[in-house]
């Protein structure tokens, strides 16, 4: 089965499949000079707490829309980038991957920037929540207010991506 470029679901993530998906360019075979990748992992500690595992919840159809929007923003900034972005939901153990991103481009700079931009935007706007289970309890982690039109958030993502 062909790996979709954008996906959210409970299946374990396979970075190899994302790399293959972005390398599969019908229009420009052989033109890529780089694939930058990012794998987000579940860490065993957070703000001084010993973490046992995480549970991710998402509003799947809106999450896919968010990924499409992030991809569109990337196409405006780096038109030669092909992006793959998968987010996992459900229970993920320590060391497991929660998000996988691959960005292919003729130029390494574009690939690195697009990859960084994508993860920053996921954290800012994707309707995904993590529940942290730690020694002594559990808590929903609450970060950014999801507003895709927030100019300040866009500027911050661009700054981190070295635009």
């Amino acid at each position: 089965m062909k790996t979709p470029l954008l996906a959210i679901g409970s299946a374990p993530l396979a970075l190899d499949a994302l790399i293959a998906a972005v390398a599969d360019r019908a229009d420009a075979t052989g033109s890529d000079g780089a694939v930058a990748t990012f794998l987000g992992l579940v860490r065993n500690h957070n703000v001084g707490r010993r973490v046992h595992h995480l549970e991710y919840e998402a509003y799947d159809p809106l999450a896919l829309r968010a990924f499409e929007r992030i991809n569109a923003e990337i196409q405006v900034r780096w038109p030669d980038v092909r992006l793959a972005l998968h987010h996992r939901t459900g229970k993920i153990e320590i060391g497991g991957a929660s998000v996988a991103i691959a960005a292919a481009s003729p130029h390494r700079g574009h690939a690195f920037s697009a990859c960084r931009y994508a993860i920053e935007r996921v954290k800012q706007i994707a309707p995904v929540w993590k529940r942290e289970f730690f020694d002594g309890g559990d808590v929903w982690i609450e970060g950014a207010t999801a507003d895709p039109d927030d100019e300040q958030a866009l500027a911050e993502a661009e700054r981190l991506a070295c635009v």
Partner: protein
Amino acid sequence: MRVTLKLFARLRDIAGTPEMTRDIEAGATVRTLWQQFAAEFPEVASYERSISTAVNADYARMDRVLTDGDEVAFLPPVSGG
């Protein structure tokens, strides 16, 4: 009019359900529905300024006017990645 309300993360825990249907007056906005929800579950009041919302699985503003059958989601601050 009747709309479906979808709830996530802590809002879902507070309400005790991921989904509910609510009757609203014609001309009601997302904000109207939020106020109705907050009246029913006072614990959510602190989210007034930090939630974002979606209508029919697309981002929407609080002043969006609802129509019969809409699916409205209240999104607490997100923490993906």
